[in-house]
């Protein structure tokens, strides 16, 4: 059977769903475009790896520490967003990839360029997670991320973020504490990226600085944008599409990257709200079909 293979692809897809959901809070709601999400992801992975191999903590004991570390680092790395905006922020987030990667490489505490290996598989009541178990574990966290996102999208925080995302000056005039919410967005976003990193590190079993490069940040943003910026369904769908499609398209493996680059460009030209974003063709169509169907049921027609 190929169940293990599918579950492996599924586990990575789940990890990327957590990443796109967390980036959605930062970029979708708060409109702080980040091309440095792999840095937060990497910090989570490295924190988990170090806590597991150097301090001997279990996955569960380490997880709160990982979340704490990534939250604090996220707040710290989010500070530039208070000073700079828009394109300047994009460029400094690009810089984060290179800086964080270099720190992992430079300090021997992080394993240097030899990375950290032999990260154990997490256990649950003394039993190591198998492929099925890990898939379940990942999707438990995906569910958590989705629920958090739904909860968050219904709170005042999201409204505030969308307000200053649209127009910062106007939002300030209305008495919104923009700085506070920007930092919130960075904190929540990087906390979830940290969880994704921990899941990744324990699943792959080894971390190297190259794992969390700039190309990874592009991937994550591309997933979110492709699915639909600012929507939870878009974040989930984008990750699913860009993780599964390349696997399914292995028969054209030599052209995969060419196709994904071209698709990304074309998508943004023709459907900039993403495949399932607000007002996108697919979303409107599926809503229309749904409505049609409902009306059909209501009127008793076959």
């Amino acid at each position, binding site marked *: 059977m190929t169940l293990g293979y599918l579950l492996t692809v599924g586990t990575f897809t789940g990890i990327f769903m957590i990443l796109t959901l967390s980036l959605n809070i930062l*970029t979708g709601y708060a409109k702080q*475009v980040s091309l440095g999400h792999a840095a937060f992801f990497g910090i989570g992975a490295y924190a988990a790896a170090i806590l597991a191999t150097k301090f001997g903590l279990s996955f569960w004991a380490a997880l709160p520490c990982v979340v704490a570390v990534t939250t604090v680092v996220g707040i710290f790395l989010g*500070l*530039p967003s208070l*000073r*700079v905006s*828009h*394109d*300047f922020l*994009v*460029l*400094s987030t*690009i*810089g*984060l990839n*290179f*800086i964080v*990667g*270099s720190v992992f*490489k*430079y300090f021997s505490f992080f394993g240097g360029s030899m990375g950290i290996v032999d990260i154990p598989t997490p256990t649950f009541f003394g039993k190591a997670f198998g492929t099925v178990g890990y898939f379940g574990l990942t999707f438990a966290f995906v569910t958590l991320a989705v629920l958090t996102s739904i909860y968050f999208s219904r709170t005042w925080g999201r409204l505030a973020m969308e307000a200053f995302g649209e127009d910062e000056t106007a939002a300030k005039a209305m008495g919104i504490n923009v700085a506070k919410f920007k930092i919130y967005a960075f904190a929540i976003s990087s906390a979830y990226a940290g969880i994704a990193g921990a899941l990744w590190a324990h699943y792959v079993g080894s971390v190297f600085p190259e794992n969390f490069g*700039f190309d990874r940040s*592009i991937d994550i*943003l*591309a997933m979110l*944008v492709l699915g639909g*910026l600012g929507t939870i369904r878009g974040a989930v769908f984008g990750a699913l599409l860009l993780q599964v499609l390349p696997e399914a398209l292995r028969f054209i493996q*030599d*052209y995969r*990257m*060419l196709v*994904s*680059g*071209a*698709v*990304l*460009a*074309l*998508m*943004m*030209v023709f459907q*900039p709200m993403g495949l399932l974003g607000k007002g996108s063709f697919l979303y409107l169509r599926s809503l229309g079909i749904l409505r049609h169907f409902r009306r059909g049921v209501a009127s008793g027609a076959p």
Partner: protein
Amino acid sequence: MDFLQQLVFALVLGSSYALIAIGLTMVYGILKVLHVAHAGIYTLGAYMALLVVTHLTRNFWVALLLGMVAAGLAGVLIYRGVYYYILRRPRIVPLIVSIGIFTAMNELFRLLFGPYQHAFPAVLRFPMVITPYFLITQKQLLIIVLTTFFLLMLYLVLNKTRVGLAWQACSQDLSMAGAVGVPVDWAVALNFLLGSALAGAAGVLMAFYRNMVYPTMGNVVAYKAFVVVVLGGFGSVRGSVIAGMLLALVETFLGSLEWFNFPRDAIAFLLLILVLMFRPKGLFGRL
């Protein structure tokens, strides 16, 4: 003695940064687009020159000229074919489109020319400078002289021609410029032509300097050039040239220190974030 020699290295490296950053900063000045695909144009220039050198003639000047022409045209094509239609969209749209184009271009080069590095066997007769204090090789002198020439030409275009005036008007306010009779489409297209040709020239020069053409040669350049653009204050050509030289100086001198092992590419971005924290509009930007 060593200091002067390092200065020569920095000058050459800085020339390449400046040539690439000029196109980026000009595009940003007018369209406010982060033109990542600019680095693809840089690579394209190098590959075009490689084709000339391997199939047509070994003459460097022909290769340089055709490389610049190809790069310039490709730049205009990207503008008229893509950016033109998405200028009014949120800023993130052209940025991601640009990244998509850049990825696709890199892959196209790999598929067409193979993943390997190619040597660049152009032939050129050019003098070199030998002094007791430092040495400037033939290729280094070529880069310094050519960059100076290009910058001079650009200065003249910007300040002494109607085109320069039109660009200035466009960078103030695109729709207003149109309203007062500036042929905006032409001005922007010319802007892309010139900026991309300079990036193409940088690609050819670096290919010749390092004897190497390969698909991913634009990767680091793509993002480091942005650092230069930011440090120079978005949209300022003069600022970009100075910032390019400064970055090259810092990289060269830090890079030459035996105890300094922190990865070089990160220095540029550390500098960027520091500068942005304290001067959010760049080192030379108008505050």
